[in-house]
C-alpha cells in the first residue's frame, strides 16, 4: 500500500476528485496548506508599509491506495493539476504498512477504497 501525497493548486482539486471517483477511488483526504517553492512571493501593502508573502496556498491531497494502483492515481492528478506554470506542485509516494477501517476494525488493503462486492451497512 502506498500513500500518495500531492501538493496541488486548490482549483485543480474538483476535477481530480471527480475522475478519481469515477475510477473507483472515492476515498481521500485533503488539507489546506501553504507552500514555498519556485513560485514568486507577493508583495502586499498596508498603510504604506510592505509585507512580502512567500508562502502560497496549496491543497495537500492524501490518498492511500494499493501499490499497483499508484500510477493510475498519479496520472489522474497530473492530468488536471498541470497548468505548466511554476507552482503546479509535487506528488510524493510513501510506503504504508498497515491500514485499518475504523468502522469495522478490519485491516488490509481491501479497506482502502470502496469495492463493489463489499457490504454497506449504513
Amino acid at each position, binding site marked *: 500500500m502506498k500513500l500518495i501525497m500531492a501538493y496541488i493548486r*486548490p*482549483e485543480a482539486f474538483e476535477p481530480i476528485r471527480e475522475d478519481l471517483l469515477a475510477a473507483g477511488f472515492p476515498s481521500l483526504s485533503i488539507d489546506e496548506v501553504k507552500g514555498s517553492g519556485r*513560485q514568486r*512571493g507577493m508583495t502586499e*501593502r498596508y498603510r504604506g508599509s510592505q509585507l512580502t508573502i512567500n508562502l502560497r496556498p496549496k*491543497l495537500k491531497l492524501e490518498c492511500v491506495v494499493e501499490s499497483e494502483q499508484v500510477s493510475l492515481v498519479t496520472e489522474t492528478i497530473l492530468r488536471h493539476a498541470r497548468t505548466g506554470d511554476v507552482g503546479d506542485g509535487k506528488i510524493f509516494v510513501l510506503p504504508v504498512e498497515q491500514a485499518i477501517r475504523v468502522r469495522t476494525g478490519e485491516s488490509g488493503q481491501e479497506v482502502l477504497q470502496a469495492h463493489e462486492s463489499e457490504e454497506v451497512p449504513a
Partner: protein
Amino acid sequence: MRPSFLRALVLAVLALVALPAVAVAQDKPSLTQTVVELNTAWVMVAAILVMFMQAGFAFLEIGFSRAKNAGAGVAKILTNFSIAAIAYWAVGFALAFGGSGLIAGTEGFFLDVSSDPTKAASQIPLLETYTIAPSALLFFQFVFCAVSLAIVWGTTLERIKYSAYIIYAIIFAAVIYPVLSHWIFGGGWLQVNFGMQDFAGSTVVHLIGATGALAALLLLGPRRGKFGPDGRPRAIPGHSMPLVGLGVLILWLGWFGFNPGSTLGAADGRFAEVALVTNLAAAAGVIGAVLTIYALQRTIDIGMAGNGAIAGLVGITAPSGYVEFWAAPIIGLVAGVIVVVGVLAIDKKLDDPVGALSAHGLAGIWGTLACGLFTSPRLAELNAVGDPGLFYSGSFGQLGAQALGVAAAFLVVFSVSFAVFYVIKKTIGLRVTAEQEDAGLDIVEHGMYGYPEQFIPLPEMGAASSGPLARPSLGATGSPATAATSRSTTSRTGEVPA
C-alpha cells in the same frame, strides 16, 4: 408616565387629529399644534432608537453563539420583530391601551387612525394625558413589546426550533406583553390600585422578557455539552466578542430612546434628565460588573462588562423617571454586582448563554424595587404615580407596592409562558434533535452556514473560489501589467524573492 400632565392640550390633539384638512387649511401655525408636533418628533426619535435595539439584541445573541449558529440569530430577530409588528398592531395595542379597564383594553384592534382619526383618539385614553400623535404612541409602545420579545430568545439560543419560537412570538406580542403593559403602563390594576412605579419598564419589558425566557429554558434544557458528566458547567464560548460589543453599544444607544422617550413628550426638558440618569447608571453598571468579576476570577471578562452595562440600564429603567441624579450610580453599581453574581450562580444549574435571566430578570427586579427605595417626592408627584421611596419617606409602602408588582408580573407571565411552551413541546417540539444541534441551526434550519467559507471546504466553493494568492501570475500587487511581466521574467534569482 404622568397621567395628569398638560391635560389641557388634549383638546388640541383631538382637534388636530380629527381635522387634518382644517389644520392644513389654516394659514397660521398654532402653538398647541406645534407642541404636539414637537412631542411627536421626540417620541418618534426615541421609538426609532428603541427599534434599533433589535440589532443590539441580535448581535449580543450572535456574538454569544458559536459560529455554526450565527446566521440563525439574524433570521430570528427579523422574524420575531416582524411577527410582533403585525400582532401588536392588530391585537396587542388594543389590549394594552384601548380603554381603561383594570385587566385589559378592548378597543382599537387593527388601529387605523388615518382612516378614522377621531375614533382612534377616543379609543385611547392615554392620548388625553400625552399630546402626541396616536401613531407615535402605537409605534413607541410596539417597539417596547419587540424589545421584551427579543429578551426571551437569548437564553434559548443554539437549540430552539424556528417553528417553536414563532408560535410563542405571536402569543407574546398579541396577548402576554400587552396585558401586562396595560396593568402597569396603561391604567390597569397595578398602576391604578397599587401605584406601582415603573417608568420605562424594568418589570413590564425586562422582567417579563426574562420570565418568558426562564419558562422556555426549563422546558428546553441546556445545550449539549454545557454540563459535564460530573454535572459541572463547562464554558461554551460564543464566537465573537466584537459582535457582543457591537450589540451592547447599540443597546446602550437605544436606551436613550427607551427611558427618555418614556416621558412621551418633550415637556420641560425632563427627557434630558432621564437620559443623564440612565447614562450614569449604565456606567456604574459596567464598573460594578468589572470590579466584581475581577475580584472573583482575576480577569476582566468582556461579556461580563457588557452584561454590567445592560444590567445598569435595566436597573435604572423603572427608576429613571423617579430618582435624582445621585441615586443613579448607586442603582447601576448594585445592578452590575447583581448581574455577575447572578450569572455565576445561575450558570451552575441552568444554561443561559447570554445571561438574560440575570441582566434582564434579576436587574429588572432590582430596578423595580429600587423605586421603592429611591423615588424622590418631587418626581413621584410629577409623575402622579405612587409615593416617595423608603430613603425619603421612611415608609416601606412603596417598596411593598413594587414587590407586589414584581411578584404578580412574574407569576402570571411565568404560568402562561410555561403553559404555552409546554404545549409546543408536546406537539411540534421545542428543540432540534441532538444531531441537528451538533450540526448547528444555520445549516439545519436555514440551509446554509452563517459563515459559509468557514465551514465549506475551499475546493467545494467552485473553481472560481481559489482565493487570494493561489494564482501564479499576481506577483506584483494589483497591476495586471506587472503581473504579466513578472510571469515572463521569472528567473532563478526571481524564483524566491527575499
